[in-house]
């Protein structure tokens, strides 16, 4: 088992686990979008594992439609992460870049072009990550599109997240959570930038899946903190805590 594969499996296991953890709350209607995001992360990481991909793709016709599904679920992940992240950190400009006119054009173009290059590629037989077809230019562009949109959103949200991690006005667990989240997104940006300029070998797996792990852990910290918060009675007497004034 290579390091890359180990990271890949852990990323899938973690995201699957935390999607499960969030299921009961999601059924009750609490923060469904992040639950849905965790599910999509689990779908994306799952479909990048050969074992699952080679089982799912033949069910969808065996012409790598599962890979397109993977791409689209990844876009979904980043739309949710971007929106929720921007709202969480109070970064209005990031929200505008993601769902403002520019953001919607970028998203629309990405979705359409992804489908177009998928159709233009000659990929008749199931192949995880389309690795068997790497020699085709259209497959390469298709892969690049799939990295560019996530990097665009990640670039918008990672700055406010990292700023929150440095902000001592947030409580410590939230700073840690924001830090993991922000570093995860920064890794996404770094990864995409590196793929544009060089062949990064083993980091092709290591970087994106480490990012998944970091973001998942960051969200897990927030989830745990939220659970603990709910157990405490709301509106606790704060004035009582300020005695020595």
């Amino acid at each position, binding site marked *: 088992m290579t390091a890359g594969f180990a990271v890949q499996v852990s990323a899938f296991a973690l995201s699957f686990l935390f999607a499960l953890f969030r299921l009961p709350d999601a059924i009750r209607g609490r923060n469904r979008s992040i639950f849905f995001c965790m599910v999509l992360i689990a779908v994306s990481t799952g479909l990048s594992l050969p074992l699952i991909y080679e089982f799912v793709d033949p069910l969808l016709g065996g012409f790598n439609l599962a890979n397109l599904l993977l791409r689209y679920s990844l876009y979904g992940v980043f739309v949710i992460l971007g929106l929720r992240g921007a709202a969480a950190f109070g970064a209005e400009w990031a929200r505008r870049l993601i769902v403002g006119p520019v953001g919607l054009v970028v998203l629309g173009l990405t979705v359409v072009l992804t489908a177009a290059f998928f159709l233009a590629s000659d990929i008749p037989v199931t192949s995880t990550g389309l690795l068997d077809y790497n020699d085709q230019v259209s497959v390469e562009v298709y892969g690049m599109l799939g990295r560019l949109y996530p990097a665009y959103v990640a670039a918008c949200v990672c700055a406010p997240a990292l700023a929150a991690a440095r902000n001592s*006005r947030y409580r410590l667990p*939230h700073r840690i959570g924001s830090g993991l989240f922000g570093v995860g997104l920064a890794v996404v940006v770094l990864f995409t930038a590196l793929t544009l300029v060089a062949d990064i070998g083993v980091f092709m797996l290591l970087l994106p899946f480490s990012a998944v792990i970091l973001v998942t852990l960051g969200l897990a910290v927030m989830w745990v903190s939220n659970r603990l918060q709910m157990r405490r009675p709301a509106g606790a007497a*704060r004035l009582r805590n300020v005695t020595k004034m």
Partner: protein
Amino acid sequence: MGVSAKAFQSWRNRVAPNESTADLCRRTGIKRSTLAQQLVRGNVAVATVVRVARAYGQDPVAVLSEFDGFRGLAEGRRAPSAAELISQVPYQCILEYVLARAGADQEHPAVPKVAGYADSIAVRPWFDAVDPGDLRPKLSAATGIAPQNISAQLTAGRLATRLAVEAARQAGVSLTSGLVVTGVLQPEEGGWPPTGREEALAALTDAELVSLARDRLDALAKVLRKREQDDKYDHALLENLG
């Protein structure tokens, strides 16, 4: 920074020549491992010196004055100023006293009631009360400790022993005051009269008392506003990502 272990040992041999370390620990309630560690490190905490002095019936301030870094402490022990005394009155007691004066008449004069020293000493209000405006930079220049480090300690409600003494020296107040408000010395050991705060409050005119109450409420509102703002940030975070 406390006092040097060598000086501590020689002092201890003078005060209690026949007592072993075990005896000393039993008498003072200091853990043997704690004392041993301080001796090995060569730096004995001021709190240790104070406890040993008390256990052997000595004046902690006079004892501390024998050590380098604390020379002149006993000579610098004076009565605290009214502002220092009032800084150690919790805002609740001040508000209650305002109400008491408002309801007082000839037969029933208002009497200030203040919570015990142990429940109300706080270094930050004291520091603000003695600060003529440039105490932080002056204290930093005198000790070599960065101003942001001093501020961080005050925010956390602490001040290192040496800094507490030096702050009092720089502010021109009783040298022992800083040690009283950091809890190193008992108020009476530091020359603070037992009912000093009540007397200082009673000496205020109505206008001074009400202004004091207003200032305290302003400060309290500022702290609460900041906390509520912080809570709002944390809430937004959890609402969206939690």
